């Protein structure tokens, strides 16, 4: 496995930390979106890239986190709400994971896709029946630099966690599961535990990012925060970049956020048509993502995947 010298991430961190004073508001908010998707894609790939599971639950975790902020922001304050949002998503992931992680392939993908819809409908129903309103307003948002630094820290933490998991016994177990779950079990891996732990960890980041980003919308309702597009975009970014790497999703999250920001508002339908076509072409002709191009050219000796 290839090591990146510590200088690059350290330099990138310092550069990113200076941005609030260097960039105008518009570009700062674009950068915020980049960081959000970077965090989401890296944490998605942490579990799904290694195990070859296809989880579409990101939108559910993100929405749960956002709703924790919506409910608890006033009472708890911003940072505890972000932490609690992550923990709530992780707990939800552990619970659901225990029930459905024995399924593989299409079943797992479909169930996790349904999860977002399920939680969304449940919350809508709850609000309608007991609160008599749908959605809530966030009155006093924290300053945009506070949000920026929180999301930056979360994205960096997601990358750090991805690196730590990759180099740990857990990461080894997850890759073993991805290649052949039966073999991993025979070799003494508690696959159930490993899968639930990694699934919950990756959900923590999605939930915390949702909680941190929630204050960007002044009005929060289930269709906004449980938007399946967030989940699709995350999967797409990770797959396009190369889900078995960490750098791949990072780079492609920048490309996609910029593209989305400029094209989606102007040509919403054409943008999604192009996105769909791109997804098909990539899966057919470059299933390992763009990172596989570099694997082949520069790192022939890296462990085959």
């Amino acid at each position, binding site marked *: 496995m290839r090591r990146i010298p510590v200088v690059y991430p350290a330099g990138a961190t310092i550069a990113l930390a200076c941005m609030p004073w260097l960039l105008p508001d518009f570009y700062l908010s674009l950068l915020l979106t980049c960081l959000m998707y970077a965090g989401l894609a890296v944490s998605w790939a942490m579990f799904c890239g290694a195990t*070859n599971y*296809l989880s579409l639950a990101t939108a559910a975790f993100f929405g749960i986190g956002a709703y924790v902020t919506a409910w608890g922001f006033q009472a708890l304050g911003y940072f505890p709400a972000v932490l609690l949002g992550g923990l709530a998503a992780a707990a939800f992931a552990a619970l659901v994971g225990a*029930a*459905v992680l024995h*399924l*593989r*392939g*299409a*079943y797992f*993908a*479909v*169930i996790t*896709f*349904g999860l977002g*819809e*399920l939680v969304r*409908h*449940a919350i*809508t*129903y709850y609000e*309608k*029946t007991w609160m008599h309103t749908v959605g809530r307003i966030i009155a006093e948002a924290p300053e945009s630099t506070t949000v920026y630094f929180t999301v930056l820290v979360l994205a960096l933490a997601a990358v750090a966690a991805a690196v730590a998991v990759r180099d740990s016994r857990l990461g080894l177990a997850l890759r073993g599961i991805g*290649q*052949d779950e039966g073999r991993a079990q025979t070799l003494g891996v508690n696959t159930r535990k490993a899968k639930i732990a990694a699934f919950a960890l990756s959900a923590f980041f999605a939930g915390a990012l949702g909680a941190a980003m929630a204050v960007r919308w002044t009005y929060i309702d289930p269709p906004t925060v449980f938007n399946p597009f967030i989940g*699709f975009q995350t*999967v797409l970014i990770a*797959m396009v970049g190369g889900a078995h790497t960490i750098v791949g999703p990072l780079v492609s999250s920048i490309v996609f956020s910029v593209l989305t920001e400029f094209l989606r508002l102007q040509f*919403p*339908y*054409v943008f*999604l*048509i192009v*996105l*769909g*076509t*791109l*997804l*098909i072409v990539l*899966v*057919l*002709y470059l*299933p390992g993502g763009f990172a596989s191009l570099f694997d082949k050219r520069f790192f022939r000796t890296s462990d085959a995947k």
Partner: protein
Amino acid sequence: MTFWLELIAGGLITGGIYAVVAMGLNLQYGLMRVMNISHGEFLMVGAYLTWLAHTTLGASPLLSLPFVMIVLFVVGLGVYWACFRPVMKTAARTAAPVEVIEARSLLVGFGLMFFVQNAAYLAFGADLRGYSYLAEPLQLGGMRLSANRLVVFGFALAASLALLAMLRWTLVGKAVRAMMQSPTGAQLLGIDTRILHPAVFGLGLAFAGAAGALLSMVYEISPSMGEPYTVTALIVITLGGLGSAAGCLLGGLLLGLIEAFGMHLTSPSLKMLLSYAVLILVLLARPKGLFSR
């Protein structure tokens, strides 16, 4: 009493459509492990074709149904050739072909979903469309049901039974069933996947188109109408068991009934929650389907 009968009839009618939607998908997934998540999008295409034929040419929706099926069959051949044939080809060279086919075809399906849905938005706009066809109510043993819903139910049932009969008694059906039981064995006996796979994929889309054409007679249509039906189809397939066409028919009718009664006893906004609860329960208790032995 009449009220309960109407509730049962309503549930069965919805369930009949679910069965037709699910059958096409089940055939594709059972035969070649292609989980085409854009199935509902082709249902939407079928609905729009019927609507177009009715509003511009004045064609009766029932008469245009076979044409819609033929068009979607041909579209299915094209989609298979362009998108899924390469997946099957490259997957055959990997270590775990079945898993690779499942994962990649799912992603290709998502791409198709984006593509078809947004192309429809571009072509037709986001407005709800509809036309009125046989909308007058009928009295039937004390029940009041609109005529179009009965016609839809009749056609849905007929299409499902025709497919069942084809699978059971014709040579093509036997080839499909043999292929589901043992792909290698079937190939050894001279069944050609290069013909059977595209044909079955096209047949699946033709059924999606038929379901769309039927739905357009009863409900208003929009470019995003397909997605919920894809999810419902997946639930029906899980209920009925993978690759089982008869299970699909029973599962569809059962889900229609469960939804009708569940919504009556709780609240209509809980429809999705109910379906998912059923799906998760079945997956946990009987992952091979309710009717598996």
